[in-house]
């Protein structure tokens, strides 16, 4: 009867890590970009306006999103923050879950949630129409609603 002895120094199973490497690089780059974007966002929304935080209302947001610059700016912030945050959560899940099925379930939930939020956010930023309400002309400058 052949006895199979487990090889004492069998090489550990290799898993491709190009993905892990890319994720690591993404976290560094997005982290720096987010720092700049968020400081810019806070300054423009809260610090620079004359009335400070009180300046933010529907008109303020509508005014910003009428400008493609702010659409791209906010879109970039949305995508980077959600992917950065979700990837951070993924590492936490990987660090702290011991059961494989739970790890998979949590990671799938995370990415599905992030995907939905990105989709919804992008939809709002790109299709935002303040003039949907006919009353809007009473409190928004004509510039916003050209139609």
């Amino acid at each position: 009867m052949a006895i199979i002895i487990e090889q004492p120094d069998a090489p550990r199973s290799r898993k491709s890590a190009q993905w892990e490497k890319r994720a690591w690089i993404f976290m560094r780059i997005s982290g720096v970009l987010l720092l700049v974007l968020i400081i810019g966002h806070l300054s423009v929304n809260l610090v620079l306006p004359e009335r400070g935080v009180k300046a933010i209302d529907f008109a303020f947001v509508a005014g910003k999103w009428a400008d493609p610059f702010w659409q791209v700016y906010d879109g970039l912030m949305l995508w980077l923050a959600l992917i950065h945050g979700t990837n951070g959560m993924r590492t936490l899940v990987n660090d702290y879950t011991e059961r494989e099925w739970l790890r998979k379930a949590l990671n799938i939930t995370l990415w599905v949630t992030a995907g939905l939020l990105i989709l919804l956010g992008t939809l709002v930023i790109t299709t935002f129409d303040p003039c949907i309400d006919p009353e809007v002309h009473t409190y928004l400058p004509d510039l916003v609603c050209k139609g």
Partner: protein
Amino acid sequence: MSTAVESVKEIAEVPSFQVTLFVRRFDPENDAEPKWQDFDVTVFGTDRVLDALHKIKWELDGSLTFRRSCAHGVCGSDAMRINGRNRLACKTLIKDLDITQPIYVEPIKGLKVEKDLVVDMNPFYQAYRDVKPFLIASDSPTKERIQSPEDRARFDDTTKCILCAACTTSCPVFWTDNQYFGPAAIVNAHRFIFDSRDEAAEVRLDILNDKEGVWRCRTTFNCTEACPRGIEVTKAIAEVKQAVLRGRA
């Protein structure tokens, strides 16, 4: 004459004090779970935690099991968790701990406990073996391989490793995922990756560019804090990450 003898006596007198040690005990033949057991021992100001453990083993309870070899911080056998921190028992003076409180001594975390303070080090050594911790050179060793002091300095820090596992078992990633190579294996890979005489840096970088390789490191610095040899472990891991990105040492 008599005053000289007295002063020598005074110098020779080392203060002694009483401490309580709580030791995490586990006997695989009788216990289902590890448990704490306390011992009161009288120790001297010059005593280390290892001396207190010796006192317990030799005078109070011979069944206490722990590893130690050189007992002078060189062999790395007696890494244990003392008051919640990984240290070498032979390098930790009891007087430096808070002796008004009991001293807690546990086995290092993340490796299977075999008995009391002895853990199964095999997964740790396996990760070490997997990074090929030896010189790989194509030329035959017929003459000395010359290296400049600058080239030697690149990996000087990581030559100090004694494989005590204090770093790897202080790593929160390793606690839950012992497929992770762990700081010690990466430190020992670093020692050869940045050695100008070695020719297999790419091989090792490829090994560590693994799902369980350097990217699992969260830079929590637990390893750097735990290292009894003062190796800047997290820095070494960061240097290996940079080398993986560059594709060369």
